Each structure stands twice: as structure tokens, then as C-alpha cells.
């Protein structure tokens, strides 16, 4: 994205972006305000050579607060592809395994990504609802070392959907949504994945696509139309879908056994999609829930520390530990997340500290009380 002339003129250099940025607090010299200014003077200047271009988490705390609406994450993203051409590459986490998995998925291949549904619930080949599972089947083997079964997230969502009498379509032909390639500066790969996914969903005959992962939802909503035009189906995030369907159903939830709980807003679901209330309403549907907010909640929530499987650093770890401490300080025993990546990152940070807070997925919290 090139900044518009008006935005450039309106940038007051107020520094709210830098003041809001969780990276600036930990990483010396990282300043969104200065990066914008430097780039205006010298459009292809040192921003392309600097590793600062990869440090932004795209958590959107800056753009959410910017008085003139400069979308800094999008601005920095637009430089990433050019930086790659100049061999300025990000440090990929987990040896780059997720980037490779994404690339492999853009080609012709036969996947087995529905095996987990056996015993978890019933699905259909064609139908009105398509459940877009996302990367969980691939995350699962990688994060075994954290004692984390990422696949439990889709299992629980399927369990809830089945309880509502919905048998969704889950497809072996689903691909990565392309979120990480989009934010990692690989637009060509992103476009390929977007086209393949839309093709698969259209072929299933689904009218509504339900997303469990905020990243998939945000990517379809924000970035797919530029590639495939208006989406020929409706897209819903599972939290808004359940807020609508659960009270109308005959399901009664059992009492909570998790003590005091708090909610960690995922950046994509919160700031980028504006869904702050739906997950909270879901949590409060469980009887006897003791819910407390952390100091930084909703628009002010702090990112879980890493985006797009790159640049995990001491800075990320500090952010994650601070977040867990925040939950501890308000007396929460459980921190509920609604994004698989937030759950992975917070669990990883927790394994290196003695902070005694359980990290739990929102849909596990609901499904356990069915």
C-alpha cells in the first residue's frame, strides 16, 4: 500500500503508533513513526535493507489508534516482497516448516486432512455449511512437544456444531488460507491459495463458510476479494455464529469448573475484525463463570508475540510472559484464547516460566460443558 497524499499530509507525527507498539517497547530503535517519515523522504531507502521490516507483528494496535487512519501493518507489508528480492529475509520459526507446508499446498496434492474427524463427529461431502478448519491438522504433530493437541480445537468446534444439529462439510482439498504468505510478502503464493480455496468451497455447494480460526476469517474477509472478487458465499466466524445459534437451541451448558477466567483477544478477531463482544458472550453463557478482564483488553489487548511463523525473539517471549503475568495479577486461573496461534505461543511461553495460569481454547471451554 502506498500511503495516500492526504494521509501523508495529515500525519501529525504524533507518535501514537510508536507509543502503542508492543515491539517498540522491547526492541530498541523500532519506531513506526520514524519508519513512515524515513520512507516518505526516501521511498526505497534503508527500510528494505533493515530487519525492522520483518519485526512488525501486524497486530494493528497502531493503526487502530492512528488519528488519520494510516494502516501501518499494511504499509510495512507492502515492502516485504521487495525486501525479499533484495535478499533481506525473515528469520523463520520452526526451521521454516510452516512456510514449506504452505508452498506445498499451492500445488497438486492429495491431502488427508479430515482423518481427525473420525470419532470426533459427523461431516458431509456436500451441504449448506462449510467448516474451514485451517492449519490445525498440520500444527498438531509440530507442537506435540508442548503437550498441546491443537487438533482438539476443530474437534471441539465440530462437537458443538453437531450438537446444534449441523453437519458441516470438511474437505480434504482445503488449502492453507494464505494468511502467513500474505503477511510474509509472498503475494503470488497467496493468490494461488486463495483461488484454490474458493474453488473447493464453491464445489461443495456451501452457502455459508464457518471459520474457527480468526486468521482464516480475517484473510477471507479482508484480502480474498482483491484476488477472487466478491465471495460467492457468506462467511461467518464461529464465535458470532454460536452467539446467534446457541441461545436459540436446546443445549444447556453445565457449570464452569475453571475458576476465574479471562479472555485474550486475538489481534485478527479483535482489532482487525471488531469482534470483541461475541467471545465474551460465549464465555458468559457457561453458568457460574467468574469472568475478569485483564488491564489490556479489547482494543488495547496485547499481541501474543509472533505472527506468520517468523521473527520469534526474546522480544516475543517478553510480551508473552507479560501477558501471562497480567492474567495472573487479576487472579485468573485460566486464560481463554480464541486463536490456535495465541494458544500455541502463550503455552510455549508458559513452559519456560513458573506462571501458573492455564491456557485454554474458547471452544474447549464450551465443549467441555456440553
Amino acid at each position, binding site marked *: 500500500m502506498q500511503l495516500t497524499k492526504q494521509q501523508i499530509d495529515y500525519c501529525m507525527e504524533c507518535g501514537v503508533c510508536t507509543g502503542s507498539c508492543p515491539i517498540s517497547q522491547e526492541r530498541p530503535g523500532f519506531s513506526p513513526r520514524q519508519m513512515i517519515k524515513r520512507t516518505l523522504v526516501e521511498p526505497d531507502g534503508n527500510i528494505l535493507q533493515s530487519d525492522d521490516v520483518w519485526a512488525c507483528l501486524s497486530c494493528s494496535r497502531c493503526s487502530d489508534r492512528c488519528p488519520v487512519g494510516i494502516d501501518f501493518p499494511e504499509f510495512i507489508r507492502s515492502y516485504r516482497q521487495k525486501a525479499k528480492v533484495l535478499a533481506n529475509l525473515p528469520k523463520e520459526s520452526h526451521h521454516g516448516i510452516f512456510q514449506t507446508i504452505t508452498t*506445498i499446498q499451492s500445488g497438486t496434492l492429495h491431502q488427508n486432512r479430515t482423518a481427525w474427524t473420525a470419532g470426533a463427529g459427523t461431516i458431509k461431502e456436500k451441504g449448506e455449511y462449510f467448516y474451514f478448519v485451517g492449519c490445525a491438522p498440520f500444527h498438531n504433530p509440530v507442537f506435540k512437544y508442548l503437550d498441546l493437541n491443537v487438533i482438539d480445537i476443530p474437534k471441539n468446534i465440530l462437537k458443538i456444531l453437531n450438537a446444534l444439529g449441523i453437519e458441516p462439510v470438511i474437505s480434504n482439498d482445503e488449502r492453507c488460507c494464505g494468511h502467513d504468505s500474505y503477511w510474509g510478502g509472498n503475494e503470488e503464493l497467496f493468490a494461488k491459495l486463495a483461488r484454490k480455496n474458493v474453488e473447493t468451497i464453491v464445489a461443495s455447494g456451501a452457502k455459508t463458510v464457518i471459520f474457527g480460526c480468526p486468521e482464516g476469517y480475517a484473510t477471507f474477509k479482508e484480502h480474498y476479494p482483491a484476488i477472487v472478487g466478491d465471495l460467492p458465499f457468506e462467511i461467518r466466524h464461529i464465535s458470532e455464529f454460536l452467539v446467534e445459534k446457541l441461545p436459540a437451541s436446546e443445549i444447556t451448558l453445565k457449570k464452569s469448573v475453571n475458576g476465574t477466567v479471562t479472555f485474550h483477544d486475538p489481534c485478527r478477531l479483535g482489532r482487525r475484525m471488531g469482534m470483541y463482544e461475541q467471545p465474551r458472550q460465549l464465555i458468559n453463557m457457561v453458568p457460574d463463570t467468574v469472568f475478569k478482564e485483564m488491564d489490556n483488553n479489547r482494543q488495547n489487548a496485547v499481541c501474543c508475540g509472533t505472527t506468520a511463523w517468523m521473527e520469534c525473539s526474546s522480544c516475543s517471549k517478553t510480551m508473552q510472559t507479560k501477558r501471562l503475568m497480567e492474567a495472573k495479577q487479576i487472579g485468573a486461573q485460566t486464560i481463554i484464547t480464541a486463536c490456535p496461534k495465541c494458544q500455541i505461543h502463550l503455552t510455549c511461553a508458559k513452559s519456560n516460566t513458573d506462571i501458573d495460569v492455564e491456557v485454554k481454547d474458547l471452544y474447549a471451554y464450551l465443549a467441555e460443558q456440553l
Partner: protein
Amino acid sequence: MSGEFKPKIIAFACNWCAYSAADLAGVSRFQYPPNLRIIRVMCSGRINPNFILKGFQNGADGVLVAG
């Protein structure tokens, strides 16, 4: 061309055991099929899961880690 399937196999072989064994096979003039491509690594501990996936991404039908 015959219809026989000849898989392309990439072998990551540890310098101190598997690679030495392959080397010894060569010195002893044993033959092995050309569809096995050996990459020497100084230790099989050098291999991470992404090496294996990259192998598949670049068209390998099988990946052998030996060490």
C-alpha cells in the same frame, strides 16, 4: 520409456556412518541404482523436519535419513 516407476529418493547420510558405508560400497565397486541421490551431512542431528518436506516439495518421491 518403460512404465516402471523409478522413485527419486533423497538420502541424507551422516558423514560418520551411513555416508562412510555408501563410500565403502563405492570403493568396493558395488553398484546402487542412480535414483538414490545422496547428500552428506556432518551428523544426522543436522536434519530438521523442513529438510524432508523441502525434499518432497522439490519433487522427491522418498526421503531417507540415515545415520
